[in-house]
């Protein structure tokens, strides 16, 4: 790892550019690390998506089917999906999507790529730790998926891995798989923690001259706040994972009541991480979608400071709502009241953000690029996911809809409808910067329309089957008399899921084809204002030949009297167009 030890005086960021294939293995450049995260997590996205299709197939055509007539099986069913494998599939689908896809895409890929570029820094504060975090993340993914190849199969206790099912081998039958799951979670947590303090240090210390905190683009604000959530929440999960490994393999009983342990301890530890995690998975998406909406509406973000404060509020409140996942475990009334109120209150900053997004497109001059369409879909789907969340926040209703497909619909509206649409918006926006070429807009729009339509056909009816009483995590709904009538809807959902899955191949084709054949992007194809668009696409090693000086906020679009409808952040003020956007507080750059 020779590059790690080189400290060139000419490079302010402390390392030199690796070349050739080595670039993709040992490079300490935040941009390459971002791309490593991007490619790896997209690969995991397709693995996790494949698992989802198998799950859907089993629900539509169960191999376990036992009908009153005695008919067993269905000509369309896949016999290799037995109940244990089904349980392993949904456990690993969620684990992969949360820990190996959405988190690394938002935070690893875009966080790495965009933070230094957007604040005018040459690299992250700790490039070596940055690269280490990627390799540790990859290792955690390999360990988790290795569970499929060990005796007993992968962990099958749900991504929440409630003890004592997860912690006692005799109950789960997947001692090895569950141990690998916990080890993967622990190691994945290390990657998150390394990334988090790196981002915080970078944003605090390495902003370009003039880049006051209230001139930072919302993408960076969102990632900055998310980094604090990671730093505070992830260690708790890592600790829980370590305790789980001890319980499974070394005879402790933290969670097994038969030997004096407490199953609710796991739930508290898991959800103390798990609820901030929900916001870890959506805050960066909110930040990036905000920027995309602003760029393509040709308007400043509506209520920039309100947006920042709303994210602070979400970040803080996110730590005091975890109990709403445990209403059904028999919670003390005072506690359930407190968690119920805090859960309702956390909806307020989300509402504020939604209104400000509407304010941003109001009066705009909207350019309907694929990126913009995805960002608009993000807002709409997030609204639906937010509304279905209100049902869960109300304790009595929560009792009824808990663990039904209603909640499956809810979190897919937030995680796919929210985060994944925002990720698509971001890929379409920043791909030209990353690779110097444009994605094909026609293919992009076809991809968007198909994804949007199939997404809703797939996930909206899940609200209905959930209300109709269908439980989640059951390998065969036809085992229940009262659910058999729902089977046509389940088959319909499965068809939509297949459509949704296959639509992504268009994206894949567009993504790889455009690497070579896309139209050249130029420095600033979207006519955006932030610093990453002032440099070449892709930016060279070290990002900025000269450290930029920032004179204004990140959103000077359509300033009256200015010849263009955007003013770059590093454009010095002229007499008629002084628009700081916010206070012109200077920070002292140290990068």
């Amino acid at each position, binding site marked *: 790892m020779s590059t790690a030890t080189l400290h060139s005086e000419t490079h302010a960021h402390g390392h030199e550019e690796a070349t050739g294939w080595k670039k993709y293995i040992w490079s300490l450049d935040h941009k390459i690390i971002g791309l490593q995260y991007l490619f790896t997590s997209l690969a995991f996205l397709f693995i996790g998506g494949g698992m989802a299709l198998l799950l859907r197939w089993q629900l539509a055509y169960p191999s376990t089917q036992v009908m009153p007539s005695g008919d067993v099986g269905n000509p369309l069913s896949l016999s290799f999906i037995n109940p244990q494998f089904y349980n392993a599939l949904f456990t690993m689908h969620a684990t992969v999507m949360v820990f190996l896809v959405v988190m690394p895409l938002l935070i690893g890929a875009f966080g790495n790529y965009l933070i230094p570029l957007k604040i005018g820094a040459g690299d992250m504060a700790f490039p070596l730790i940055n690269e280490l975090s990627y390799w540790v993340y990859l290792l955690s993914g390999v360990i988790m998926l290795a569970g499929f190849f060990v005796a007993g199969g992968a962990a099958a206790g749900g991504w929440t891995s409630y003890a004592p099912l997860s912690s006692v081998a005799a109950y789960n039958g997947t001692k090895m798989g569950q141990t690998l799951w916990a080890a993967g979670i622990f190691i994945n947590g290390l990657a998150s923690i390394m990334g988090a303090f790196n981002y915080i240090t970078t944003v605090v210390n390495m902003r370009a001259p003039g880049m006051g905190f209230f001139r930072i683009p919302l993408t960076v604000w969102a990632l900055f706040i998310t980094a604090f959530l990671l730093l505070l929440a992830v260690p708790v999960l890592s600790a829980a994972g370590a305790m789980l490994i001890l319980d499974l393999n070394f005879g402790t009983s933290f969670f097994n*009541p038969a030997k004096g342990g407490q199953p609710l301890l796991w739930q508290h530890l898991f959800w103390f991480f798990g609820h901030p995690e929900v916001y870890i998975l959506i805050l960066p998406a909110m930040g990036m979608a905000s920027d995309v909406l602003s760029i393509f509406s*040709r308007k400043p973000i509506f209520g920039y400071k309100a947006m920042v404060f709303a994210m602070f509020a979400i970040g803080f409140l996110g730590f005091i709502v975890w109990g709403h996942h445990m209403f059904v475990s028999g919670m003390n*009334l005072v506690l359930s009241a407190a968690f119920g*109120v805090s859960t309702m209150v956390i909806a307020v900053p989300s509402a504020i953000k939604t209104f*400000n997004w509407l304010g941003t497109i109001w009066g705009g001059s909207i350019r309907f690029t694929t990126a913009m369409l995805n960002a608009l879909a993000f807002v709409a789907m997030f609204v639906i996911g937010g509304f279905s969340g209100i049902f869960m926040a109300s304790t*009595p209703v929560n009792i*009824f809809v808990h663990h039904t497909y209603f909640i499956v619909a809810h979190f897919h509206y937030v995680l796919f409808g929210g985060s994944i649409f925002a990720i698509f918006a971001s890929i379409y926006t920043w791909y030209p910067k990353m690779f110097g070429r444009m994605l094909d807009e026609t293919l992009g729009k076809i991809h968007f329309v198909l994804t949007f339509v199939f997404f809703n056909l797939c996930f909206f009816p899940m609200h209905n089957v959930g209300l109709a009483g269908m*439980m989640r995590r059951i390998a065969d709904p036809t085992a229940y*008399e009262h659910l058999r009538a729902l089977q046509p809807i389940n088959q319909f959902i499965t068809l939509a899921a297949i459509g949704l899955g296959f639509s992504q191949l268009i994206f894949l084709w567009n993504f790889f084809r455009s690497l070579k054949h896309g139209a050249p992007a130029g420095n600033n194809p979207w006519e955006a204002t932030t610093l990453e668009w002032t440099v070449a696409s892709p930016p060279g090693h070290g990002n900025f030949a000269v450290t930029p000086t920032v004179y204004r906020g990140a959103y000077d679009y359509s300033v009256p009297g200015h010849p263009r*409808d955007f003013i770059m952040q590093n454009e010095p003020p002229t007499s008629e167009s002084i628009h700081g956007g916010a206070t012109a507080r200077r920070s002292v750059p140290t990068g």
Partner: protein
Amino acid sequence: MRFLFSRVPLLALTLLGLAISGAQAEIRQTSVWWLPRNVTMFGHEIDFIFYVILVLTGVTAVAVFSVMIYFIVKYRAKPGVSAVHSHGNNTLEVIWTGIPVFIFLALAIYGNEQWTQMRLKTPPADALPVAVIGEQFGWNVRYPGADGKLAKMSAASVTKENPFGVDSADPAGLDDFTTYGELVFPVDRPVRLYLGSKDVIHAFYVPEFRLYQDMVPGRIYDFVWLKAEQTGQFQLACNQLCGQGHYKMFGKLSVVPQSEYEAWAKGKAPQPTAAKETSTVPVVMAGR
């Protein structure tokens, strides 16, 4: 509203050639698209809150989407028309922060009030006590005999052989009888449940009862009670992932007139010689 929600999608699906077969439809007495019928006393309140939230979110959703679509159409890029330069409006921020705070707090307080009422209402003295102890993958059920009292139970005494954790010295338990996976509740009579688990976490879930309760091993839940107001056949489902056989951990649950219940209980009552606690024999619950 209910008509709209329940019938239109069904019609659409039927047109798509996914008609629901008659053989399947007879089991459900309500639409497959909506809440199953409610048969318990507390269910009315839960359904009411559900509809309050549905109307509230539905109206807001229509409003938000209307505004969004209007903006998208009206403010599409047009040659020669530039965007408004605005960084926001503090009055609007105050309004759209204040109104949601008010609505969400009201919802939280109202929902919590209802929940507290439900939970604090102590079961009437004549409530029928029934113990249900989950295990991988079935339900141990214990009913009181003629004395109307179950033996004393404690979570600490729950073992493989003694799934209910009963105190065998307690004379109240002598006439108790047990079933495996079969529950019968008398209609219009309060039933007090004692819920627990032998191994992992299970959950007692009956959608028509609007009832879900986790059964965490190591404790006996004694606060759940209900009153079924209609007779019928239902399925009790475990709704907390409990392992390989989770998907078929269901039980038979009937709500019957009091007289029918008494006849059933009489038939189940233990013979005098077998009055001691007997361990239940797990039955493979495949099919029906």
